[in-house]
């Protein structure tokens, strides 16, 4: 071969390798495309083989790819968020303070109202805890949270993922619940050194165990293809109505029990699965415009100290309120009693009998005898005081009906005699 090679001219060499070379040259574009597609198909196969769904964190190799991508994008997102937050803070803290006083007054009223509500709930909470201890029910309360800022999204409406500015540096871990004071947001999907991915509850691959607040029906919420939160695993039930509050049930081992998920928006038959209903949920949190979230990093079986203090304050307020209410009721009762006594003094018929000289009359022996039945007030004969100027209407002046005779002379007629009419000039007696 080598001895023959120098004898070959350029044209001869080209003719020697012509078939293969022309194949690669001719189909170079398609071959590159096929290679790229094949490589990515293998990449997909590796990921699918892990049997991790899109809601679970990736394997180590894939995490590395995502970590690189996030490392490229996150600094820009962080810078943009920082700039936007700074501008908004400068505007709201220094310039736009027009309604601050009014807001402050409104908030103070709100705090006062919430204190009263807290006092009302405190007793229920205490009773609930007693019942839980009786049933040996292990409740998990939120013990520790990490506040994080949302710095980006996935950028695709088919993937409801947020990027937050806290990661492994704050000891975040996959599957930690993410909430706001209004309700749940989702859970941590993947954690990077300084950032983390949050899978929102409206993503099709997400899921959360919930319970309907009034009917106590358990279900699973997940994201629909149109990006709306829905329940699809319940059969038709007439008790379920729009407006019912949906809470986390704690059964998924991710979200603590009792966090608000949203309210039922509509109920309709599921077109794809005949037996089931499609219940759309209006999320308690505006998932499309989140700025700050709380990641629950720890739960505990007892109430946290701050919550215990709040509960104690609520119980004390409830006790104060109860004492004040009792005092008010006692004062009202005393007032009513005093008014009744005063009225009794002013009504002669209700007075105890007195002698003409003003001294109290001797008590009626019949009334003092407990063996005799009590006299009904309606049957008691009322003794009226004598009139100063008696007339025919005065008690005792009218004779009894038995003494009256039809057409007879009535000494004191009940009807007055007719008034004399004016005399007519034709009167014959005149």
């Amino acid at each position, binding site marked *: 071969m080598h001895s023959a090679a120098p004898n070959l001219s350029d044209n001869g060499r080209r003719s020697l390798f012509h078939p293969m070379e022309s194949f690669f040259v001719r189909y*170079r*574009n398609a071959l*590159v*495309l096929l290679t*790229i*597609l094949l490589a*990515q*198909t293998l*990449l*997909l196969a590796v*990921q*699918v083989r892990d049997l991790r769904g*899109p*809601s679970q964190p990736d394997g180590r190799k*894939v995490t590395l*790819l*995502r970590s*690189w*991508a*996030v490392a*490229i*994008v996150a600094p*820009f*997102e962080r810078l*943009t968020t920082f700039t*936007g937050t700074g501008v908004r803070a400068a505007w709201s803290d220094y310039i736009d303070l027009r309604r601050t006083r009014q807001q402050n007054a409104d908030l103070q009223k709100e705090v006062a109202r919430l204190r009263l509500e807290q006092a009302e709930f405190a007793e229920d909470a205490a009773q609930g805890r007693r019942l839980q201890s009786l049933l040996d029910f292990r409740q998990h309360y939120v013990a520790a949270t990490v506040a994080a800022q*949302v710095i*980006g*999204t*996935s*950028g*695709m*409406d*088919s*993937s409801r*993922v947020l*990027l937050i500015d806290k990661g492994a540096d704050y000891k975040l871990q996959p599957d930690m619940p993410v909430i706001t004071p209004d309700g749940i947001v989702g859970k941590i*999907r*993947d954690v990077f050194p300084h950032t983390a*991915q949050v*899978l929102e509850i409206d*993503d099709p*691959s997400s899921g959360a165990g919930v319970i309907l607040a009034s009917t106590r029906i358990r279900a699973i919420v997940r994201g629909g*293809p*149109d990006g709306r939160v829905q329940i699809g695993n319940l059969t038709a039930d007439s008790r379920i109505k729009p407006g019912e509050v949906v809470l986390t049930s704690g059964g998924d081992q991710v979200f603590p029990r009792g966090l608000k998920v949203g309210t039922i928006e509509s109920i309709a038959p599921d077109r794809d699965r005949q037996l089931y209903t499609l219940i759309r949920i209006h999320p308690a949190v505006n998932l*499309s*415009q*989140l700025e700050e979230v709380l990641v629950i990093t720890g739960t505990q079986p007892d109430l946290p100290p701050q919550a215990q203090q709040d509960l104690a304050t609520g119980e004390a307020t409830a006790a104060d309120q109860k004492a004040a209410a009792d005092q008010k009721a006692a004062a009202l009762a005393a007032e009513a009693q005093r008014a009744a006594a005063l009225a009794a003094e002013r009504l002669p018929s209700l007075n105890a009998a007195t002698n003409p000289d003003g001294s109290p009359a001797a008590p009626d022996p019949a009334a003092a005898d407990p063996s005799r039945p009590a006299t009904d007030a309606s049957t008691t004969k009322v003794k009226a005081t004598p009139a100063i100027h008696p007339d025919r209407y005065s008690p005792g002046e009218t004779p009894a009906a038995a003494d009256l005779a039809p057409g007879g002379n009535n000494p004191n007629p009940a009807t007055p005699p007719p008034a004399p009419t004016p005399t007519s000039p034709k009167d014959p007696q005149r």
Partner: protein
Amino acid sequence: MATRSYTSRRELDEHTFHPAVAVLVPVAFIILQALLPRPFPRLAILDLPLLATIFFAVSRRSPIAGTLTGAAIGLLQDALTNQYIGINGMTKALIGYAAASIGFKVDVDNPRTRILMVFAFCLLQSALLYLIHSRLLGQRDIQILWLHELLRAAVNAALAIPVFFLLDRTKADE
């Protein structure tokens, strides 16, 4: 800069870009795509990475460059989601290849052609994504909302005109 001598219409229509432009524009589009839906949720309907893929593919007129650009943009886009990495990479690699291939045959500088091209490629991307999810990954419960996809294609086609007009100014040989 090296002087080019154009000997054919193909060479005349091929454009080159400064390496910084070729790297930073797609990255900037991906970052914008991740940032914009946060303050303006309705802007999630935009697909700026797709516009970048189409623009660079039709401008370079090179199927290999279009394939590689599309694959890189798609993979970076996938990495920011919770989906398997490679779904958008495959889709955009195919679209980059197709866009570069039709660049030889039609006048891609005409605004009407650009609108039609972007509209068609948006729908093609939706169809490819559906096929990958349902056939390749076996996700039988995946649904495609065609009305939404048509709206998305129309919005992106409308957006492509000003975006392409701005990106035309980044061509190194202009």
